[in-house]
């Protein structure tokens, strides 16, 4: 490789970050995804300011199943609530669920994948069996198992870590069913990383296993974790939607998934109330698509083979 070109590579961390951003934002997909995401995050941040307090059957402002009009931009639902109002409030719940579930999934997945890959042998075999178990476990089944337990312990009205029990269950269930995917990717990456000479060198200079994992392997996993993290978020939004759709959501804090399920139950499709289904549906699609776009762009940016300078 050339030394002279290498001189052109930015010297400091800040410039490295700038270069990274430059390359990342060079992707049309990444820009579109970010733009879309920023919009939804902004909406989720101040729903009351945008559309007033969350409407219920009591303070509903419109007639039943009204098509979009000047007053109700996205029409109304079967009890006269403004769909725009519901969708905007749903954004917050959906995003919070997806992000928290992703954090759980990344932490668990990375820890297990890295430990299995690094230690190998029996540790690897058992951890991978566990991973495979969760990998094939449908989130719906897990939710059905956990929900009654949590409700039994907490009661419907209680709060766990500031979340209502049904929300908490959904977050945990999504986290628990998506980490296996992360663990597999992290493990295979760790397997190849640990054969690298710099790990041998770290051993020779006296580093312990834990410090090798934290200081040498983890930083080199960041690209994979980041790129797949975005995909996990996208997946989490879908899973949240389907769980809510199956009636496992919280009717008092409607997420997009809950809305879809309500619309379905109200017979929106047969009644021709397309706005009721389309509004939350389009939101789910665009947010998960944005995360997929961002994930792909991250993957592309981090992938050394696609970089001009290795």
């Amino acid at each position, binding site marked *: 490789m050339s*030394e002279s070109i*290498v*001189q052109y*590579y930015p*010297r*400091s961390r800040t410039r*490295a970050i700038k270069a990274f951003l430059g390359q990342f934002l060079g992707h049309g997909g990444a820009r579109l995804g970010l733009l879309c995401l920023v919009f939804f995050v902004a909406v989720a941040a101040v729903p009351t300011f945008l559309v007033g307090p969350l409407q219920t059957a009591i303070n509903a402002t419109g007639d039943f199943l009204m098509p979009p009009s000047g007053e109700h931009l996205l029409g109304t639902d079967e009890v006269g609530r403004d769909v725009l109002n519901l969708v905007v409030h749903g954004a917050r719940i959906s995003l919070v669920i997806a992000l928290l579930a992703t954090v759980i999934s990344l932490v668990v997945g990375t820890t297990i994948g890295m430990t299995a890959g690094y230690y190998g042998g029996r540790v690897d075999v058992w951890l991978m069996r566990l991973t495979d178990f969760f990998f094939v476990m449908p989130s719906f089944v897990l939710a059905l198992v956990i929900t009654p337990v949590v409700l039994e312990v907490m009661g419907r009205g209680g709060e766990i870590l500031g979340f209502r029990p049904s929300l908490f269950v959904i977050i945990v269930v999504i986290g628990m069913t998506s980490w296996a995917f992360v663990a597999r990717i992290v493990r295979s990456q760790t397997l190849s990383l640990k054969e*690298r*000479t*710099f790990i*041998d*060198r*770290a*051993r*020779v*200079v*006296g*580093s*312990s*296993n834990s*410090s090798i994992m934290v*200081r*040498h392997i983890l*930083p*080199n996993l960041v690209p994979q974790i980041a790129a797949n993290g975005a995909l996990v978020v996208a997946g989490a939004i879908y899973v949240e939607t389907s769980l809510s759709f199956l009636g496992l959501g919280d009717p008092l804090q409607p997420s997009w998934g809950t809305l879809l399920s309500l619309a379905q139950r109200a017979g929106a499709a047969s009644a021709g109330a397309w706005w009721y289904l389309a509004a939350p549906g389009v939101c789910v699609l665009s947010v998960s698509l944005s995360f997929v776009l961002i994930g792909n762009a991250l993957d592309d940016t981090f992938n050394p083979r696609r970089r001009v*300078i290795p």
Partner: protein
Amino acid sequence: MPDTADILRLESLQVHFPIQRGLFDRVLGRPAGAVRAVDGIDLNIGRGEIVALVGESGSGKTTVGRVITKLAQPTGGRLLFEGRNMTAERGSSALRPYRHRVQMIFQDAYQALNPRHTVFDIVAEPLRSLRLVDNVTQLAERVSKALAAAGLNPAGDFFSRFPHELSGGQRQRVVIAGALAVKPELIIADEPVSMLDVSIRAQILQVLVDLRDKHNMALLFITHDLPLAWLIADRIAVLYLGKLVEIGSADEITFNPRHPYTVALRNATPQIGGNAGRAVLPALQGEVPSAARVPKGCRFHPRCPLTFDRCKKEEPPPIEVGPQHLSACWLAK
């Protein structure tokens, strides 16, 4: 003159890697074979001595280095450091005192450096993990000293650089600086210059020789280049298929080789002085046999131009052919 008390001794060191048997072999009950990467080596390194380990690729040089640095576990024989048996020692905390005194320089410097660590982090790593410093000032001081000793001046300029921002020669110096930072008494250098350009090679060699001269550090220099071994080493050990076939002083091995394999190695080395004094024997044919199927008798006999009956049946022991000069060949006498 180097002090000759041995710092390291290998006694019939053996490293066999098991071969994974296929299902077919297991059903037929065929015995599991082994790759005999290192097959009984006796070698000692004196304090402040430079010993070169020379051999073709696949002869087991790296494996010897990995055993000494405790990256591979021998399946037989002993590893003695200052007379203490280190063969069974394991675990990063138990090995800490040993690591403090034995360090390694890797063949491919680029691979040996974590691309996400700065030069400072890389050189500081051994000092931190071996707990050799108490505070950051001391750390910075020792890192600067190590970088300067490896010829990276001014050291401060390199602190915040990443490996990809260094030239090949500079990277190898960073690896050397990391090894030097702990002030080891023995360094295993695995082909430290083979990835480098000729023009930088000599600079790195100079750094290594200076370390011996100034700090009486011992060096096991692994290479496949005989003239290079002659240039830097006091003694040369020639390895073939996991066994030492000849060992002696650098001059003896270079100018008076007594094993046909050493002669072949010398003949194969391209030289600018032309072919004077070479071609005593025909060039070697064929390739190194796999270490999974070591030939019976003298392991060199299928390729040896001088082979005769006895070679196929009996393995020659090391035979003394001069002062401190051993050759494992029936014709050496």
